[in-house]
């Protein structure tokens, strides 16, 4: 006997002979025309724009900024905000695995084969994409300390205080690293019953000696762990969860397909934003710059 799940999987739309058309000419014609249009467009593009060729490779002259190919610049952008192992390997691996897993999680056959397909699909898509794009941009601006520059400029510009600088008490809010360097971790130890706890947050003994040679596991540098791993990862996990809860609250989510639509659209938003920022808004030293201010120096 076939289980219900297996039976459901085998369900196929009924074949409607009367609604079918012949592949030749109907489909072959469309394929031919689209191939033709692309060939011509690419010919024209290639006649007008040359592929770049810079100076011969020279290991002793590093261009600043050095960038990966554009389709990896979203990862290179992540690299600026977290531990390299997360940005370069773990996050993309998890993202691809989750992407591949979508159909094993959202198995309902309802709504297949038509655009969007659920009642709130349009809103979820627009919201997911827009909100993710905005949140990502804000996070990038914050980690680039642009809010510091802008606040200083505005307060000075308004003549409120002509030599205003970002208050030291808010150093921890300058950027992500602020959680590491802007907090007086040295003075945060405390004593319980004669034992001094956490007198050195930068070397919290963790590992069982002899079981590991990895110094990271032996002595945890908590401030760095916090700013380079805990917060970034919590953000990447937490924001999608918040998105889902928010849309649930609005009553937009009824099926797994709805959640998939929301998260996938948000993912596309993040993917695009980070790619564009990495490509067009990162200048020397990977500082945030408008595209027209970006020059590549060879050092």
């Amino acid at each position, binding site marked *: 006997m076939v289980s219900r799940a297996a039976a459901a999987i085998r369900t196929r739309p009924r074949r409607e002979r009367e609604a079918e058309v012949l592949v030749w000419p109907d489909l072959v014609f469309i394929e031919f025309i689209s191939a033709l249009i692309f060939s011509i467009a690419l010919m024209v593009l290639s006649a007008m724009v040359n*592929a770049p060729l810079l100076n011969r490779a020279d*290991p002793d002259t590093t261009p600043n900024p050095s960038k990966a190919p554009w389709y990896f610049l979203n990862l290179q952008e992540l690299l600026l905000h977290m531990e390299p192992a997360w940005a370069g390997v773990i996050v993309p691996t998890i993202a691809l695995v989750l992407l591949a897993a979508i159909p094993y999680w959202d198995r309902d056959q309802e709504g297949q084969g038509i655009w969007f397909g659920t009642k709130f699909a349009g809103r979820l898509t627009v919201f997911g994409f827009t909100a993710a794009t905005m949140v990502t941009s804000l996070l990038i601006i914050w980690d680039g300390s642009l809010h510091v520059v802008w606040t200083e400029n505005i307060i000075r510009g308004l003549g409120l205080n002509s030599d205003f600088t970002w208050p030291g008490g808010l150093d921890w809010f300058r950027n992500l690293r602020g959680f590491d360097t802007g907090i007086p971790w040295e003075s945060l130890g405390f004593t319980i019953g004669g034992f001094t706890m956490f007198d050195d947050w930068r070397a919290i003994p963790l590992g069982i000696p002899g079981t590991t040679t990895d110094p990271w596991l032996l002595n945890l540098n908590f401030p760095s762990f916090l700013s380079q791993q805990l917060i970034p990862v919590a953000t990447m996990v937490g924001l999608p969860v918040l998105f889902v809860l928010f849309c649930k609250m609005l009553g937009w989510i009824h099926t797994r397909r709805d959640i998939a639509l929301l998260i996938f659209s948000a993912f596309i938003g993040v993917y695009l934003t980070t790619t564009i920022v990495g490509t067009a808004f990162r200048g020397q030293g990977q500082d945030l710059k408008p595209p027209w201010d970006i020059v590549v120096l060879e050092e």
Partner: protein
Amino acid sequence: MANLERAPRKSFNDLIYDLIFKNYVWQSIFRTGYPNTPRNQMLAVATNVFLHLHPTRIHRTHVKITHTYCLGGLSFFMFLGLTVTGVLLMFYYVPSIERAYQDIQVLESNVRFGQLLRNMHRWMAHAMIILVLLHMMRVFYTGAYKPPREFNWVVGVVLFILTLLLSFTGYLLPWDQLAFWAITVGTTMVGSAPVLGDESKFLLLGGFSVGPNALIRFYTLHVIGLPLVISIFMAVHFWRVRRDGGLARPL
């Protein structure tokens, strides 16, 4: 009794038509006449190895441009175009650090249409990545990953990764500053993996930094290794589109 009615005289067009489509050589290549009757049209698709990727009939909704925007087909078309231009590029290019850069310069300045050839290969590679991403989005938003197409979606994800790798391995080949440092940055990211990071980086580069070994490895992967693998996955992908009952349709 003699038949007084003569067969109607063939028009000039018919003569030409018969000359082209009803001669021995043509019919040895294409078993069917020109596909101008439903029967011949179906036979044309079914008996041709290339067209045979298609079924002979498909549902009306799937020939609407707005259903697929031809994105999967165009991704494949880019792959074909890249193969053709890539083979031509191989005539002029030697993957050694002494020659690679110079070969590209010579290709651009001394080979007729060399610059155009290189440009075509470059822009098609970029176009393919964008088209594959858009194709993935169209599949997602039409809910076409749902059962029974789960596995083909996974095959698709693999195709996406392979497309990126193909492009990445090709990026190094001109051996200019752009190529060298992009690959240096990219492989450094690989090296930061928590497990086997340094090992994978070493395996990829054939050394600790981008040099002659890396060039030959990237070249080999780019011109034969990855194209073979992606062809296999594409074959599976197309086969599964047919096996899973053609494109997804509402129940």
